[in-house]
């Protein structure tokens, strides 16, 4: 029972440090070269894994959409269902959780490693502020990469879902594409991108915070990654909950 009551405070426990770090970041100008490097690191190097996950999400949506078409003979609603699920609701949430692993865990691992090897303290000893050259570029790059990667995942899942539904349910491609066009507005994509941006920003903030908290040996690095992954996942689910009132 005490364990469960503690659990109720999980979102607050994880999101407060993120808010604090965000406040510290306001007004900090990130190093341009480092930001571009981190963008390549978080974004470009994650494309393949995001496409694979996007195809899986699209396939799952297609299987369920095809079942509903068969059960309710609702072919005209299939396009809307596919567009809504992949672009606005399930797609951003699952892509966000993948980013929590790919970007969040990787970022926390690197920062925790830098921390336990005293590299961050080394920068400070040289008179360099780690905020604009280490911390801010990672947080901004995570947020930008999140939006870009979601767009890639959305295309992959939409293409897979269209192919899946037309193959599995026997719907003709052109009528289905018309139904997708009529039932889906561009606002679905924008809402999905906004959600992905918020999720990725939370992942960037929480993983950076957890990475910088590490102290000790190699076990501390593992603990930091573990905390970052859990905190990012909780942050994403909480933000998704809050987004239903905003969008």
């Amino acid at each position, binding site marked *: 029972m005490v364990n469960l009551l503690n659990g109720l405070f999980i*979102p607050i426990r994880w999101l407060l440090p993120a808010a604090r770090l965000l406040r510290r970041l306001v007004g900090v100008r990130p190093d341009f070269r480092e930001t571009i490097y981190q963008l390549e690191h978080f974004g470009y190097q994650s494309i393949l894994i995001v496409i694979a996950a996007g195809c899986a999400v699209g396939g799952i949506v297609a*299987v369920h959409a095809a079942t509903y078409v068969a059960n309710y003979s609702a072919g005209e609603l299939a396009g809307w269902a596919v567009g809504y699920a992949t672009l606005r609701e399930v797609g951003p949430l699952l892509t966000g959780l993948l980013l929590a692993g790919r970007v969040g*865990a990787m970022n926390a691992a690197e920062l925790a490693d830098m921390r336990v090897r005293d590299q961050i303290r080394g920068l400070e000893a040289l008179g360099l502020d780690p905020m604009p050259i280490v911390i801010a570029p990672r947080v901004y790059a995570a947020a930008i990469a999140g939006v870009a990667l979601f767009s890639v995942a959305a295309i992959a899942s939409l293409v897979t879902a269209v192919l899946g539904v037309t193959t599995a349910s026997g719907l003709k491609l052109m009528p289905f594409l018309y139904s997708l066009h009529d039932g889906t507005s561009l606002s679905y994509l924008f809402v999905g991108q906004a959600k992905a941006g918020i999720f990725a920003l939370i992942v960037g903030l929480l993983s950076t915070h957890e990475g910088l908290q590490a102290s000790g040996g190699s076990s501390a*690095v*593992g603990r930091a990654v573990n905390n970052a*992954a859990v905190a990012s996942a909780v942050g994403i689910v909480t933000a998704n909950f809050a*987004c*239903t009132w905003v969008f």
Partner: protein
Amino acid sequence: MAAQTKRKTGVKPPWLVGQGWLHLDHLAVSSLPLIVVTLSLAGVAFAREGAIQAQMIIGTVEVLGPEYMRLTVTEMGPVITALMLTMRVGSGIAAEIANLTVSQATTAYQVFGGRAQRDLVIPRIWAGVVGCVLLVPIGVASFLLSGTLAVALWFDVPQEEFLFFRHLDGLDLMCAMVKAVLFGAVIPFIAARAGLAARGGSGAVGQASAKAVVHGTVAVLFIDLLVATVVAMLRDGRLG
């Protein structure tokens, strides 16, 4: 001692169920608050969004109940529970085993005749399967109850008109349980594999943990797709 261990493992299958119970506390009991809180939040969001869309497209919220129920039991409940376990348990197992690997504790264990790969991986897989089978129904219940509460609060749909247990059939429940077993086996396996492959210093521990989370997430999504496809084919009568 090495010969004795070898003889023992050669005769007995390496089930190691007893050791699996030791890991069950970390895997299932400690993950319970995380699962209940995140699945409840996701349930409210999913039900509220679904109800808003149903009202816009069909004009009524009442029709949402059976589909919300089926999607929760077969899809959202097991998948979100598994993704949360990947984040919490997968990265934890990978970090723990990677730590043992980089500090050469696994090598030392092997020198004394132990079989590190078997002894570290199999108990965790047992714990993963049992833990996931226990946590998925709790996750599904949290998702369902919070969603029901959300539509009752914001859309005045009474609980008896939203929760349609009779719309669920054996295939839906089987689908959820098969997914729970597969997720429970795959998450610790991938994590342990990432941990055992770690080479180097503290950076390797972090990389192994990160790899366990990413590979675990993708594996969960693909297993989900595979099981959903097989169940859909069974329902259509295209299989069996």
